[in-house]
């Protein structure tokens, strides 16, 4: 079956421009996550959506970052007025569920969008 799909795979843009990154999760997965990964580093949590609950935005680094998830499926991460320090790989993951008494289900990752700000 189809995995998590992210687009574009690469994005190069000028400082100050806005960018939109898209994530198509696995069908039926209620939880969706966005992470940022700088070269050779670990994952930095940005935001997650769980069903119809309010998203956990605690990882967003500034108000230039926002994300939405429409119809409980596709998600878009938007970065406004991009800065050079926004350059990184942005990873999306989905899972059957998150948190709760039973713990977290394994996450399934897309291959990311490599964002370069000139």
């Amino acid at each position: 079956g189809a995995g998590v799909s992210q687009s574009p795979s690469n994005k190069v843009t000028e400082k100050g421009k806005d960018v939109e990154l898209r994530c198509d999760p696995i069908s039926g997965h209620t939880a969706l996550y966005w992470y940022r990964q700088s070269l050779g580093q670990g994952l930095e949590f940005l935001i997650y959506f769980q069903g119809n609950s309010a998203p956990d935005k605690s990882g967003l680094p500034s108000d230039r970052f926002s994300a939405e998830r429409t119809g409980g499926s596709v998600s878009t991460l938007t970065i406004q007025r991009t800065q050079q320090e926004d350059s990184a790989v942005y990873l999306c993951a989905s899972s059957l569920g998150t948190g709760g008494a039973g713990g977290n289900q394994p996450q399934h990752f897309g291959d990311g969008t490599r964002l370069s700000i000139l």
Partner: protein
Amino acid sequence: SQQGEEDPQALSIQEGENATMNCSYKTSINNLQWYRQNSGRGLVHLILIRSNEREKHSGRLRVTLDTSKKSSSLLITASRAADTASYFCATDRRFQKLVFGTGTRLLVSP
């Protein structure tokens, strides 16, 4: 702050040798998961071990969990060049989201 910290940060071995990576964490957990990331790709889930389990196997992978020491280890036996990747642990606290560690970069040379 990161819940899980892997060590070593980098590990270089020859094909056929075993590779051991460790993960330490600070607070009690529900379960612990290990992931692999090949260069330029997303993370792939390898194995999940619950807090009431001590050891789990999957093919050439063996994961142990010591909740008293708040640590886990991932052992890859008879390593292959294709095992070259970064390996991350992720800790799962009750009613919390997964938190990923900083990763171990494994290089397996032919």
